[in-house]
């Protein structure tokens, strides 16, 4: 951390602090106008009824079978993709601890899905897993494993697969950084004491990694829960929350209803972000020790 002398204020005392607030002002005014005001507006819109304030838009969403189906679909997609993403990330992160030729290329590929526009990823995935795409070409035409092509695009398992492709790096990166924070000496001690590599992993590494696994899971879940481009392009009739908000607003033009759904979505995200920051703070503290 910066010492007091290294973080010396530009001007001492109250004048320096005053100048600090002035420097901060333009950004804060911008965010207040372009972000916080629209959020407040959305909140107000979600409770706007014909006769004053109403919660009808929330009950219409949370207490209707159609609304619950949307929530259920969103949760099923997100949970499945999260569990599978972490299952993929863990062995990969363990492998990436070693040095080997091409490690940089693997890391590059790991970052690629979250750097490119999601839309492009979704397009490539839809082409690849199409009924006549390469996967089905391999299974049906080349290897003759199946007689009929698999339907993957526009199905729930297909969307889960696409979410994993798109969002697993978020979990992978958190888990990689968690593994980096574990002192190799602890593992070595376990191995010297006669534990097999798997035993040491299960009893020493895994418990220490638990907070990172949770933090990584939340990170992936957040992305899946908020996913828009992938289900918009590759979801077909399956519309999870983000897409539903968009359609309710722009197709059905029911802005109060869409606003209520957006508020629910925002709240879920905020709760999960707070949980993530707690877990992350724990990892950071251990790293500093």
């Amino acid at each position, binding site marked *: 951390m910066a010492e007091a*002398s*290294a*973080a*010396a*204020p*530009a001007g001492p005392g109250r004048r*320096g*602090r005053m*100048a*600090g607030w002035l*420097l*901060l002002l*333009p*950004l*804060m005014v*911008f965010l207040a106008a*372009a972000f916080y005001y*629209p959020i407040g*507006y*959305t909140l107000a*819109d979600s409770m706007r009824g014909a006769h004053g304030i109403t919660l009808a838009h929330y009950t219409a969403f949370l207490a209707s079978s159609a609304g619950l189906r949307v929530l259920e679909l969103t949760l099923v997609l997100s949970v499945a993709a999260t569990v599978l993403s972490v299952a*993929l990330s863990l062995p*990969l992160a363990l492998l990436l601890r070693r040095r080997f030729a091409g490690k940089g290329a*693997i*890391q590059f*590929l*790991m*970052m*690629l899905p*979250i*750097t*490119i*526009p999601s*839309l492009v990823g979704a*397009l*490539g995935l839809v*082409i*690849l897993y199409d009924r*006549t795409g*390469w996967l089905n*070409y391999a299974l049906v035409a*080349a290897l003759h494993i199946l007689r009929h092509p698999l339907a993957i695009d526009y199905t729930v398992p297909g969307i889960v697969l696409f979410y994993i492709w798109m*969002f697993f790096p978020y979990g992978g*990166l958190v888990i*990689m950084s968690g593994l*980096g924070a574990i002192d190799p000496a602890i593992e070595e001690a376990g191995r010297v004491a006669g534990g097999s590599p798997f035993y040491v992993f299960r009893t020493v590494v895994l418990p220490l990694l638990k907070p990172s696994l949770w933090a990584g899971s939340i*990170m992936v879940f957040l992305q899946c829960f*908020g*996913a828009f*481009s992938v289900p918009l*392009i590759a979801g077909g009739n399956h519309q999870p929350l*983000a897409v539903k*908000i*968009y359609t309710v607003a722009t197709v059905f033009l029911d802005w109060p209803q869409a*606003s209520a759904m*957006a508020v629910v979505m*925002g709240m879920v*995200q*905020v709760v999960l*972000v707070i949980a993530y920051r707690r877990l992350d703070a724990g990892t950071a503290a251990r790293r500093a020790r």
Partner: protein
Amino acid sequence: MRTLARLPAAILLTGFVLFITLPFVMILLEAFGADWFGMQLLPGVWTLKWFRWAAQTVDIGTVLLNTGIIALLATAFSLLLSIPAAWAIARHRLPVKSLLMGAILFPRMIPEITFALGVAKMFYALGLANTYVGIALSHVILAAPFAVLVLTSTFEGLDSRLLEAGAVLGCRPAQLFLRVILPLALPGIVAAALFSFLASYNDFVLTLMVYGPDTVTLPVQTYLSIGNGYTSVASAISVILLIPSVLFLLGLMRMVRPENLLGGLKGA
């Protein structure tokens, strides 16, 4: 024993590489190939006609120009707002610093669609929708918070003795900023600028809510082309759309450890 243990690792890595890269291969094949019907491994013909189509039917030149102008505007706005703010957070002892940082980073913590509705309503009311400045401003909501994050750590890392030396030697504040701070903080400022540019260039959700006929951007045009069933044209546009992201990532991996990038990249 060792070679036996390597086999699963090799399988995992090969599978991983195919899993990640094949969607990109598909986009390239779709963009540069034609007569690719039914169960065929490769397109029948290699051609540039989809790029010509993109130029003629959807005026991709104008779309690219729109995207570039908006991204440059967004980068400029983002830096103008975030440089002073990050300086204040890093060098002035402000109270409630973590609360301030939380308030600044909040836009990155919730999905764009949750505030895009409100942004759209407001921008339409103010006449900012379908304007370069308006769309750029909507992108600044995402770009500026991350620029602040990058710049705060850059400014915190500056050696105060150099700043004091400059002041003692008679630098006026403006001179101090231009002659001392700017050169020292340049890598951080460049990184913040690149992140801002990319956030705007790649943005889809906010743009979708505030764009109009005069301000179609590459991601929006990709979406429109997919919606119209022109997968090949959409792929050709995607190839153009991908270039900055790939260059950016290649450059970035030389500068920063991948684990430290989490806050900067956010898909939707």
